[in-house]
């Protein structure tokens, strides 16, 4: 009797592993930028219900997204950057779809006592030339620089649009918007940069640059200079039939006005300007 | 006085060793020994500690296999059991053993006795109960435990545990029982009871017992072998060994001059 009881238990435990051989077809794996992840997840969930497709969205960062999609390990690679801007990625192999725009706000701890800075002052702060808030009209408090980690897309965009090639001073690096948010809110004199969606926490001050407020409207006409596209990359050689359908779904007006707005992104269709790989901005011919 | 005096008992021989030696690595712990143990008799092995008597005993049921190299022959019922082809597990059904420190399983009294039996194929519950009863009776433990066989063996006293080990061993109905200083960890009363038990067991088991206790050997054994520094000097009826030993070394030991 004892033997049969053990055998039964064993079978019961092994049943789930049988599922291991199933690898169903209509499934989409999306990996990459953590900034684009919430959008991809929410759109993926709604698309999944409508078309009975399972869409798995993972984070991992822009670097992982781009390298995995070039190796065809995943269907879509999310990235905050142009593939060309990332060393070691062969952009010719990839198809670029811009699905949204993300504005990056400059945030400081409420103790800084500063509401507005000029672009040059901002550049000098991050270059380490200005080290105390009183030099820009704030309280007498040392400035604490908090960067995003080196490979992050947000950091690349910020440094391209603000530093114009000048190196940034050393300082603390955090690898996620969440920790930047918490640390700037908690550390007196701290300054950093965050995507709009993350910047609207109560004890965070959103700096104006040259009198321009970090709003979506100011991004559409490039009054607010610090912004970038959110890209979804496909591998040219992969079977992208399902992936293309999903991207069209995201670029459809219905999604661009609903989820995109809710999550704090800016819709592609509202943009009056475009930005190329080296950050130059061009007027879009009357949309 | 002779150099050695090894007697071959006249009765039927249950087990005998031919030129058996035991080496721990390069050290020869036991020199060539030739002993023949009479059937259904108690043979005691005496000698100072380290004289090789336990080593000899443990080689009989191949308990020394991994630890030492045993050469020579051990003839049991006409077969040389000291060779690799022998199935050691089957062999130990025929040659049981009880150790110095009582080592009952951490199970109930009933399970202690039936566990090995069930493993060797005795499945029928009714038959098991019967064997448990007869073995415990033979080990003079039945009356004390018969109404609570499910009690854990670890709750028994030292003496009771040792008798449980006896019951467990005889439950397999071995032909030979090896006892390695079985009473050295017991109090005098349990020791005396233990000796009575093995005297009764003599009818259907050949018993070979290692002991430090000279009086025990004299009282309860029929034959006695005297070991000294890894060599058997004398093997004869216990009465001769203790009244007029032929070998001077035995005489010194028996009269307690050393050892």
């Amino acid at each position, binding site marked *: 009797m004892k033997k049969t009881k053990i055998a039964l238990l064993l079978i019961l435990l092994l049943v789930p592993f049988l599922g291991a051989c199933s690898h169903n077809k209509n499934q989409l794996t999306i990996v990459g930028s953590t900034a684009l992840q919430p959008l991809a997840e929410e759109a993926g969930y709604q698309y999944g219900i409508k078309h009975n497709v399972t869409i798995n969205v993972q984070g991992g960062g822009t670097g992982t997204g781009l390298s995995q999609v070039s190796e065809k390990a995943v269907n879509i690679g999310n990235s905050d950057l142009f593939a060309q801007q990332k060393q070691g990625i062969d952009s010719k192999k990839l198809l670029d779809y811009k699905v949204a725009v993300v504005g990056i706000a400059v945030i400081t701890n409420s103790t800084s006592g500063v509401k507005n800075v000029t672009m040059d002052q901002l550049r000098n702060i991050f270059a380490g030339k200005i080290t105390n808030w009183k030099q820009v009209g704030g309280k007498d408090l040392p400035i604490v620089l908090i960067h995003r980690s080196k490979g992050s897309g947000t950091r690349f965009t910020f440094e391209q649009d603000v530093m114009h090639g000048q190196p940034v001073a050393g300082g603390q690096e955090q690898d996620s918007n969440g920790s930047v948010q918490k640390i700037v809110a908690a550390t007196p004199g701290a300054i950093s940069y965050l995507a709009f969606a993350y910047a609207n926490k109560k004890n965070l001050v959103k700096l104006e640059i040259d009198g321009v407020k970090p709003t979506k409207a100011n991004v559409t006409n490039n009054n607010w200079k610090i912004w970038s596209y959110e890209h979804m990359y496909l591998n040219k050689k992969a079977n992208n039939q399902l992936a293309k359908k999903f991207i069209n779904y995201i670029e459809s007006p219905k999604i661009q006005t609903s989820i995109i707005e809710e999550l704090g992104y800016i819709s592609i269709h509202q943009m009056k300007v475009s930005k190329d790989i080296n950050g130059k901005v061009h007027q879009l011919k009357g949309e | 006085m002779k150099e050695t005096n090894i007697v071959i008992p006249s009765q039927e021989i249950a087990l005998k060793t031919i030129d058996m030696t035991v080496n721990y690595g390069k050290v020869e712990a036991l020199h060539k020994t030739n002993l023949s143990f009479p059937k259904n008799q108690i043979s005691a092995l005496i000698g100072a500690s380290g004289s090789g008597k336990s080593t000899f005993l443990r080689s009989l049921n191949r308990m020394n296999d991994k630890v030492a190299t045993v050469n020579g022959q051990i003839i049991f019922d006409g077969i040389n059991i000291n060779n690799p082809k022998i199935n050691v597990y089957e062999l130990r059904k025929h040659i049981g053993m009880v150790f110095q420190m009582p080592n009952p399983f951490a199970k109930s009294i009933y399970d202690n006795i039936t566990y090995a039996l069930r493993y*060797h194929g005795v499945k029928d519950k009714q038959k098991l109960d019967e064997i448990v009863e007869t073995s415990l009776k033979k080990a003079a433990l039945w009356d004390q435990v018969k109404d609570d066989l499910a009690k854990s063996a670890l709750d028994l006293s030292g003496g009771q545990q040792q008798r449980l080990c006896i019951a467990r061993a005889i439950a397999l109905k071995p032909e030979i029982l090896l006892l390695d200083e079985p009473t050295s960890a017991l109090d005098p009363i349990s020791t005396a009871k233990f000796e009575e038990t093995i005297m009764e067991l003599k009818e259907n088991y050949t018993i070979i017992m290692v002991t430090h206790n000279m009086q025990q050997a004299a009282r309860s054994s029929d034959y006695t072998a005297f070991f000294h520094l890894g060599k058997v000097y004398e093997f004869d009826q216990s009465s001769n060994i203790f009244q007029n030993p032929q070998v001077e070394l035995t005489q010194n030991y028996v009269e307690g001059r050393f050892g």
Partner: protein
Amino acid sequence: MNAKRIDKIARYAIQTMVAIVALILLALLSYILINGLPNASIDFIFKPSEAIKAGGGIRDQLFNSIYLLVLSMVISLPLALGAGIYLAEFAPNNWLTRLVKTLIEILSSLPSIVVGLFIYLLVVIKWQVGFSILSGAIALTVFNLPLLTSSIQNAFEAVDHKQLEAGLALGMSPWKTIKGVILPITVPSVVMAIILASGRIFGEAAALIYTSGQSAPRLDYGNLNPFSPTSPLNVMRPAETLAVHIWKLNTEGLTADSDAVSAAASAVLIIVVLLFNLMAHYLGNKLERKLTGKK
């Protein structure tokens, strides 16, 4: 300062130190529970999570955590038991066995992110298993094995070798004696090892981010066919565990109430671990009593 006084001082020093640790634990627990419990209502536990809107629950994440724990135990316990027994009973006492023991200790000191990436590159990418419970379970197995194996080995070595002798003398093979006689005696310490190991992997996040993934597709708990993607039993679906969910809420979380949900999730996670410990203790004692016949 005679010995008597030193003895008294030592006793008080030890007791104060134990009290300090107890205080730290209570402070930590109360900090987590006070922040977490108010919004960890029952329906919070049985609601799916929300990406944007507030009021999301942790139903799928909690299920994934428990399911992953069970699966990784199903894989690692037999392996650890086998290896533990081999090292304690059969392995020859030579340099090779000592080398193996050191290797196992090294496995336990590997940082979780390194193990996570190893399984990610090998299992998720190269073997095309993809982000799934299976990959997560394999990653967690790597954490379970060293702790379980060394605890089991110690447990077997701690058992008095006379029990083995007793079994052999009755014509039982070493394997049968180990399985039938010695194993039951080690059950309590094996259960203890399982508790310690599961406590650790229940809170593991770093390794799972790259293996069992960060997305929790909505599950239909009625559907028990392990092949369909919405069934909870399917091992090929990505499964964000509770710990990963807490990590995601605090790093990339855009949900409106991410702080509240993460605090509540932490509280739930600790309570589940506490329940798990108590249940495992109870089970351990019962098993020991049944197997060794002690009343």
